């Protein structure tokens, strides 16, 4: 007999608006797979299910390193607006008229590349975005550079000895509210604040003596993460290879995030949320195992 675990989504399922509840929702789902259970994502109470939530859900149900090939199912939101949004994401081919019906999620294998940087994908996205936004020029260098840096940084901040194990996920959708385009870039590695280069940097630096890890007292932890963010943005935290020419990806992402092209630019990792435009850090009461970037291109 197969064992199923039903996990209830929060009413506002969004890493941006409701990070703690959303992280907890997906962590319970992840735990279900770890316990060898099929997972039913119960979205019945959801009033909002945004692109950040969709990105994590897709990553969980597509990544066999996480779901172990176990079945994933979903219960549609009762709220009709939210239901339509979920349907528009296009993941689920089967649609039931019964609100309470459980729908098995289509698990068409995702195409996986052997390399972590897909420059031709980034090029195509830039062309499509410039066409969608009616840009006079076809090229949007800020966007292209950010996409390549995000892809390239995925493995720099993955788990030691497991380079390439964690896929990245990129989701792009029109955002009608701001007449722009929403981007979510996601990797479900260890999260940048607990990554090997950051841990090595913290261990080496005397400024970080007695540094708190996830779950430490909030004031101390917030100061710790703010310091890490400041040093990441200046390129002081090098890759695990220690090569002095590396570690320049984050400074470029921070620099490009300031562009007026980007309406918002947020990074969520472990227990921290960073507004890259305002350079502000806030703590999350939880631990998101991964790193997600959300930005809006205009």
């Amino acid at each position: 007999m197969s064992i199923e675990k039903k996990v209830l989504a929060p009413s506002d399922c969004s890493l941006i608006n409701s990070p703690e509840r959303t992280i907890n929702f997906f962590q319970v789902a992840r735990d279900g797979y770890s316990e060898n259970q099929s997972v039913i994502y119960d979205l019945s109470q959801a009033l909002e299910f945004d692109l950040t939530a969709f990105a994590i859900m897709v990553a969980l149900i597509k990544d066999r390193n996480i779901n172990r090939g176990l079945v994933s199912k979903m219960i549609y939101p009762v709220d009709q607006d939210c239901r339509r949004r979920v349907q528009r994401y296009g993941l689920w081919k089967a649609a039931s008229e019964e609100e309470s019906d459980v729908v098995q999620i289509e698990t068409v294998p995702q195409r996986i590349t052997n390399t972590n940087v897909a420059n031709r994908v980034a090029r195509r996205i830039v062309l499509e975005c410039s066409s969608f936004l009616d840009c006079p020029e076809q090229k949007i260098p800020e966007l292209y550079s950010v996409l390549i840096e995000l892809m390239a940084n995925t493995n720099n901040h993955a788990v030691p000895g497991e380079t390439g194990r964690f896929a990245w996920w990129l989701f792009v959708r029109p955002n009608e509210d701001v007449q722009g385009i929403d981007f979510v870039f996601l990797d479900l590695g260890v999260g940048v604040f607990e990554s090997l280069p950051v841990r090595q940097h913290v261990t080496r630096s005397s400024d970080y003596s007695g540094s708190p890890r996830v779950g430490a007292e909030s004031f101390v932890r917030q100061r710790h993460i703010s310091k890490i963010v400041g040093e990441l943005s200046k390129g002081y935290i090098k890759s695990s290879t220690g090569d002095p020419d590396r570690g320049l990806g984050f400074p470029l992402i921070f620099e490009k995030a300031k562009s007026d092209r980007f309406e918002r630019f947020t990074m969520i990792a472990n227990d921290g949320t960073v507004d890259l435009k305002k350079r502000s850090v806030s703590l999350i009461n939880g631990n998101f195992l991964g790193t997600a970037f959300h930005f809006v291109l205009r």
Partner: protein
Amino acid sequence: MLKISEDFSDAPGARFEADGPDSGEEFFKRLLKPRFEEAARQDRLLLVDLDDTFGYASSFLSEAFSSLEEEFGVENVKARVRIKSDDDPDLIDFVNEIIEGN
């Protein structure tokens, strides 16, 4: 002159060939190094034109120009290489800092 968008790729990738296509490592090996050697043999300057690509990752430029500096020396590279970047003039300083090892 070496124009990256025409002679190599209008969509440069990241650092290493293992990262994916059109990397800085590939650019160095296939174009930058041979063109530099050719310019040195002929005692000419080498102008590297960064314009008209979709953009650059820092790792692409870092790998290509730090490899050049490591192989031929700072002074030799500074004396012979000029960078053109009208699209993003900041990249000129960025590349020069890489060459100087900053």
